[in-house]
């Protein structure tokens, strides 16, 4: 191996992502030989200390895995426990949960689009720098984000680690008129969100195509958020019957393994690399987008989602996220319009000895929980598979591909600085949630 032709690029601290990670890239002459996302978040042992807790506790405890998508944890946890206890939450309570989840999608996507991701496309270091010449766009993003947070505050008590969620439903449900001010804000947010779709659609996107398998929940008739059947497809494989399996069977298809050379667990879907998150959701659920969101997608150059057009350029994920914000706003408005306060804020969920599973669509992708309960409800086992751990291999493949494309174009003369910037962008396309991924990760750092 020639040292002269080998270079190692290290990105020691990845900025503008949730959590802390690094990237290790090895280039030999004009070929990428290694791209490794290294996560150095300390492990926090959530699954271990859930054992021995009461069946009522996982929504509050697992929310603390992530400050950016606590609702996703609360919803998947509730679902898994209710599933174990043979309870189905439906009707207005389920609708309120979906509304809360819309709040999180709006907040989280608006944060990622405007504060974390857009600076990449506009050559700015961060949103503060961006605001110097595009203040209106940043302010619009903050306004959309605030609307998402307003939903979380109204329904959950606060945006981060909401307090009002419980197994079986809520501690308190709002009266119809309490939601009316939210509807007013959401109507403004719809205009803002549509403007954001137009804004991001005009960005300059590198040519790129990903070929990962895709996994998302599918909830026929509506764009999956809080429920559905895990459904897998390949982006160019328009088979009329994508692979489906029930939530409780997920672990038979998704295998995670711990490998000594990496600091993270890596997941495979039936032995194949795969991606979960907006691109997967859009491919699997696009035809159920609200007409306003579908039209925004068409105008943004994403093709016709109602006809099954998908987006396979990971750099355009920012456009898909923007369309999902429109979708979440429309969905929130619909729920508020149709809402009737339920007679009771929560159903009784009596513990029993059983195993339950739950899966929902966190902003970054499918989030799966499984709990085993003893007769009195004490947890005897817990398993959580977050989206970013599932996406890790796909992210690495995207980085490798993006850098290789750049080397093919520019040859070995490609500037380190440019390659590094490209790596960061390829990672941010996926809005990785590293605190989530690292709730169980190994931190040993391998250096050569």
């Amino acid at each position, binding site marked *: 191996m020639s040292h002269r032709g080998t270079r190692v690029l290290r990105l020691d601290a990845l900025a503008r992502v949730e959590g802390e990670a690094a990237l290790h890239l090895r280039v030999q002459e004009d070929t990428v030989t290694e791209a490794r996302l290294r996560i150095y978040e300390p492990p926090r042992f959530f699954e271990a200390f859930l054992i021995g807790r009461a069946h009522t506790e996982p929504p509050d405890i697992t929310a603390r895995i992530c400050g950016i998508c606590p609702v996703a944890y609360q919803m998947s946890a509730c679902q898994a426990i209710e599933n174990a206890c043979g309870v189905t939450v439906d009707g207005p309570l389920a609708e309120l949960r979906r509304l809360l989840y819309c709040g999180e999608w709006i907040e989280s996507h608006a944060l990622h689009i405007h*504060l*974390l991701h857009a600076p990449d496309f506009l050559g700015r270091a961060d949103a503060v720098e961006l605001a110097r010449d595009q203040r209106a766009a940043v302010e619009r993003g903050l306004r959309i984000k605030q609307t998402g947070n307003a939903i979380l505050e109204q329904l959950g008590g606060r945006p981060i680690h909401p307090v*009002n969620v419980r197994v079986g439903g809520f501690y308190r449900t709002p009266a119809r008129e309490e939601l009316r001010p939210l509807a007013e804000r959401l109507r403004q947010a719809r205009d803002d969100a549509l403007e954001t779709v137009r804004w991001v659609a005009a960005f300059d996107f590198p040519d790129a195509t990903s070929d990962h398998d895709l996994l998302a929940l599918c909830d026929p008739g509506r764009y999956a958020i809080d429920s559905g059947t895990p459904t897998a497809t390949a982006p160019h494989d328009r088979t009329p019957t994508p692979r489906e399996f029930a939530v409780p069977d997920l672990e038979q298809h998704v295998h995670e393994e711990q490998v000594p050379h990496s600091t993270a667990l890596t997941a495979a879907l039936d032995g194949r690399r795969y991606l979960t998150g907006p691109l997967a959701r859009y491919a699997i659920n696009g035809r159920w987008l609200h007409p306003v969101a579908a039209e925004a997608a068409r105008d943004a150059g994403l093709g016709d989602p109602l006809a099954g057009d998908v987006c396979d350029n990971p750099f355009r994920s920012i456009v898909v996220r923007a369309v999902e914000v429109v979708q979440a706003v429309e969905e929130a408005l619909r729920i508020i319009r149709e809402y009737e306060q339920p007679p009771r804020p929560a159903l009784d969920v009596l513990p029993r000895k059983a195993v339950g599973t739950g899966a929902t669509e966190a902003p970054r992708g499918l989030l799966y929980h499984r709990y085993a309960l003893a007769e009195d409800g004490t947890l005897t086992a817990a398993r959580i598979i977050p989206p970013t751990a599932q996406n890790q291999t796909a992210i690495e493949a995207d980085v490798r591909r993006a850098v290789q494309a750049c080397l093919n174009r520019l040859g070995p003369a490609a500037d380190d600085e440019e390659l590094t910037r490209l790596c960061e962008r390829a990672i941010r396309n996926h809005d990785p949630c590293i605190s989530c991924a690292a709730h169980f990760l190994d931190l040993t750092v391998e250096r050569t």
Partner: protein
Amino acid sequence: METDRGTADIQTLPTLAVWKFASCDGCQLTLLDCEDELLGLTEQVRIEHFLEMSGAEGPGGGRAELAGRGPYDLSLVEGSITTAEDAERIQHIRRISRRLVTIGACATAGGIQALRNFGDVDEFRAAVYARPDYISTLETSTPVSAHVPVDFELRGCPIDRRQLLEVITAHLAGRKPQIPGHSVCFECKRRGTTCITVAHGTPCLGPVTHAGCGAICPAYGRGCYGCFGPTARPNLRSMIAQLRRDGMSETDILRVFRTFNAASPEYAPVADLAAEEQDTPRAGTENEPERPV
């Protein structure tokens, strides 16, 4: 003298750095959740190091500047210390920070990950990892103050946005942050919420929990679960008796204190007391229902 007044102004602003240790990012996110104030704030302080928001610091986009250069006028630290590397990193951050403020339950009390302090971390490792031998971590999760002097501790899991703005504003004005040390009960009164313990017998940690959240839980019909950690001098004996009267089992009492501020010195005696109760042999209790309710 100055040719570019705008640049000069930016250069003279006080500098802010935000650091992360073992945590969920929620307390850092609170800064970004100041939607109405964020851009205004950036005209008052220069955010020099805040990886979640910016990669701007240092030559080369800050990529080799993981530990930061400093000096910084104000460092906000999120997260607890759980690895040997982080124990060193916090020393460095202290050296390059004029004032160091911890934000949140992790940095202030060890966080939920301090539950390991009550168990055997090797067992935790083995429970979670197929190859526990790959894992390197400390036996404990400790607050920042166990490692370096801290100028101010802001409580909460997560912290409150208004309190965070008060801490930053106070720093800018060179005064002490006005964060009262009283209990959640005061906030309930101020909010006009009927006491849920008195009215409904709902167990509530309000009397021993630090104010700051705005007493959200009781307003939503739920007992306070102590996410802001202890008040200055909590009357634990009285609290524990009240929780028993309100129908909490010893196990529930232990669990409610052993959550997000489990390792705080003020709460520790409660946990010990409840644990002692538990250790006392009580024949035939294993299959009893937890709580009559």
